[in-house]
């Protein structure tokens, strides 16, 4: 028999710190139970970079990339803050079903606590939609790694992944049946995790371009087998430019899924992948130009 999870009260203990010649990294919980990992340069900080992660399997896939970028940012003089959203990752506190609003609030709170210096956001996949929402209140530069440009299309991809999983397991649910389960069960197992219907409903009607306000610069980062900019990314860039936003594209040749078959058929650590060096350098160069 499966036991129901007991309702527990989890409090945050003292923060942990590690130090190197270049930086000091501290992991601890804030008053809302969010786990924050703050990486601070030894030299005076030239600005703060807050990371807006994705969710579900996309969080697991991309978190290491964010860790490496935040440490590279600190080595280059920036303070970097990784935040585990409420209800996500290692954050504690009361159960929270994440929405774009709760994610945006978490990022906004972290920016608010970061002091007076200039701030930028580096957002990943779904984190891009939350970062765009942050810009309604704070006009800060944002770098978007493989952003979800069209929420409806993202939902379609999730549904397709569900159908493919059903087929692989010998079942045969249609896309409509998957959508039906969202309506009746309130959640569907997809992307390696339980994806709540409330989140899907919210994301389905979003468009990054429509959500984007403000005038601070935007960096669109794509990672693909070729450095040819995908039409959807180019459309996003020109759409942002039409809104008066200085938008650039950083195109990186590499594999988004960093732990599979990067070197032929062999695992190559992400730290030694050329794409990581290009990504980190490209983002840091852009941050130095954009953060004021």
């Amino acid at each position, binding site marked *: 028999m499966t036991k129901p999870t007991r309702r527990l009260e989890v409090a945050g203990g003292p923060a*942990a710190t590690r130090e190197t010649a270049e930086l000091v990294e501290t992991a601890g919980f804030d008053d809302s139970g969010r786990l924050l990992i703050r990486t601070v340069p030894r030299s005076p900080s030239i600005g703060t970079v807050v990371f807006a992660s994705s969710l579900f399997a996309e969080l697991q896939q991309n978190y290491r990339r964010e860790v490496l970028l935040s440490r590279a940012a600190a080595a280059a003089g920036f303070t970097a803050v990784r935040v585990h959203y409420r209800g996500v990752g*290692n954050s504690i506190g009361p159960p929270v079903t994440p929405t774009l609003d709760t994610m945006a609030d978490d990022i906004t709170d972290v920016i608010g606590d970061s002091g007076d210096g200039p701030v930028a956001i580096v957002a990943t996949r779904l984190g891009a939609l939350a970062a765009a929402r942050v810009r309604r209140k704070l006009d800060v530069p944002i770098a978007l790694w493989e952003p979800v440009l069209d929420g409806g299309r993202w939902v379609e991809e999730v549904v397709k992944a569900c159908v493919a999983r059903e087929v692989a397991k010998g079942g045969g649910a249609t896309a409509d049946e998957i959508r039906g389960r969202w309506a009746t069960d309130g959640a569907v197992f997809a992307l390696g995790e339980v994806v709540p219907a409330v989140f899907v409903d919210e994301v389905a009607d979003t468009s990054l371009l429509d959500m984007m306000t403000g005038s601070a610069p935007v960096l669109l980062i794509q990672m693909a087998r070729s450095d040819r900019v995908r039409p959807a990314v180019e459309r996003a860039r020109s759409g942002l430019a039409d809104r008066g936003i200085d938008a650039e594209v950083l195109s990186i040749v590499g594999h988004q899924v960093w732990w599979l078959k990067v070197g032929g*058929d062999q695992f190559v650590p992400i730290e030694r992948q050329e794409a990581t060096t290009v990504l980190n350098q490209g983002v840091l160069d852009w941050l130095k130009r954009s953060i004021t």
Partner: protein
Amino acid sequence: MTIVDRPVFVPFGDEALFAIASEPDTAGPHGVVLLPAGGHTFTPQGNRWAFDFAHRLAAAGFPTVRFDWQGIGDSTGVVETFTLHQPATTEAEAALSILDTESRVLVGQCYGARTAMAMADRTEGIGGVALLAPPVRDFARGDGTATRQAYELSTRDFVTQGLRRLSPSTLIDRAQLERIGRVGRTLVRAKWRQLTARFRAPDPTPWVSEAFLSQLEGLVRSGVPTLLLYGEEENDYKEFDEARAGKLGELLERGSSTVTIEVVPGSAHAAETVEMQQLVVSKVEEWLVGLEAPGAA
């Protein structure tokens, strides 16, 4: 019941492993370390499995540590690969050092389980080992199918199949060549064992890892309580079940007083649904609750 989550950067040589200790206000004598599977997923795991795992065990009175291997999540360092017969015992020992309980229990999944087995013999104060879907064969990440076929197929079929997949680019790719070398060594070992079988005591399961058997034998000999938990739908269980026809079966018989075998529906290896994850946690919790206090025997 209040639990305190305490983040820790655990020193590991020049590197630091990121860990979180979940500490209950009233703790028993056993502390637990969760040893993750080899892969990219970091401490909370999918559906926050390790997060819930740690809190449920802590709520039952077991201080529990979850951590990231080096090169994963918030740990520093670089992970080269996850190879079952090269377990990261020193990393796991570093994580273990956070616990100050009288007895430490290792709960490992897949690669983490094989690491727990390798540690149990060489580490003081191990009060139990829970092994979630430990593979009974040795292989590097990504080599599972090829190394199984080295035993199952004839040399001719195996080589023919390999040649079909070979492309000119393979021959200039160092990583590919290394993989061919690894799998080739398994093939030679497999065929040598099959060839010399007539001169030794018959072994119907020559593909079972010697390391797996010797480490399990160590656990049986030292009387360390051991839980082997598999999902009935997974390959790891099918191979475990087949392996019982050989030396493994004899070992399990000898260790029947300390080794508990649990088989649950579905896949404990993937444990991808919340229901499956909760079921695995419940089984481990039940087993932990049944452990005697150190020195009670």
